[in-house]
């Protein structure tokens, strides 16, 4: 697993978020074909001030380096958006970004 790219921008009371996570998202069949290890993100959770604003459980059929976009209410400029991803090995990774 590698880096996380996060962009979050507040407009009025809505925050728009764009985030990219680094993962091969290889399920067992694909890993076998490419002769790589099975590795994919199983869960992505986004929080602001301790509140969950985004939560998804995923399988290896999401595209490589998942790119997600969403909007939420309840965040403002300067708040920190924290993403936590969990992969199939149970490894977690966190990334933070201030809302612009």
């Amino acid at each position: 697993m590698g880096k996380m790219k996060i962009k979050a921008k507040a407009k009025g009371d809505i925050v728009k978020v764009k985030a990219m996570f680094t993962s091969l998202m290889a399920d067992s069949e694909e890993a076998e074909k490419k002769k790589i290890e099975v590795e994919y993100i199983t869960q992505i959770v986004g929080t602001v001030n301790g509140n969950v604003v985004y939560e998804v459980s995923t399988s290896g059929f999401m595209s490589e380096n998942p790119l997600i976009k969403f909007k939420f209410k309840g965040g403002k400029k300067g708040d920190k958006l924290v993403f936590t991803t969990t992969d199939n090995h149970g490894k977690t990774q966190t990334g933070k970004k201030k809302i612009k």
Partner: protein
Amino acid sequence: MDRRKFLGIGLAAFAAIVAPVAELNAIDFRATKPKAWEAEKSAEAIKELYGSGGLKKSGIKMTAPKLAENGGSIPINIKSDLDLESIAVFQDANPRSLTAVFTIPKNAIIDYDFRIKMRQTAFVTIVGKTRAGVLHSTSKEIDVSIGGCGG
């Protein structure tokens, strides 16, 4: 001694901040519904995840290309004004059907963009469950000219 105390307080405060984060995940669908992730066909996977209730063909809007040139990265957008508790993505193109399950926080705006892989032309089905327990769905066939998953 003072320094030790200070560090102790700092550590306790840190733990207090970190601890709730670990418990935020309301539902880990992988742990609660392991069978749904193994199902090969959408119909089966939907049944495993949401039970065999009827599906209402309304309320959810999916935007996806009719023809996808690259099966490895198909952009999909789902929108809904319903008060949904969770929304799941199924497709019949890959060895297993269930692709993603979103847990929707209260008062959230349901407008999600993401990308999926598809090996072949198939139907993509989105099923959402309202907080009242009603299932809504929509589906669309996507033509894939070059398969994803390294195929």
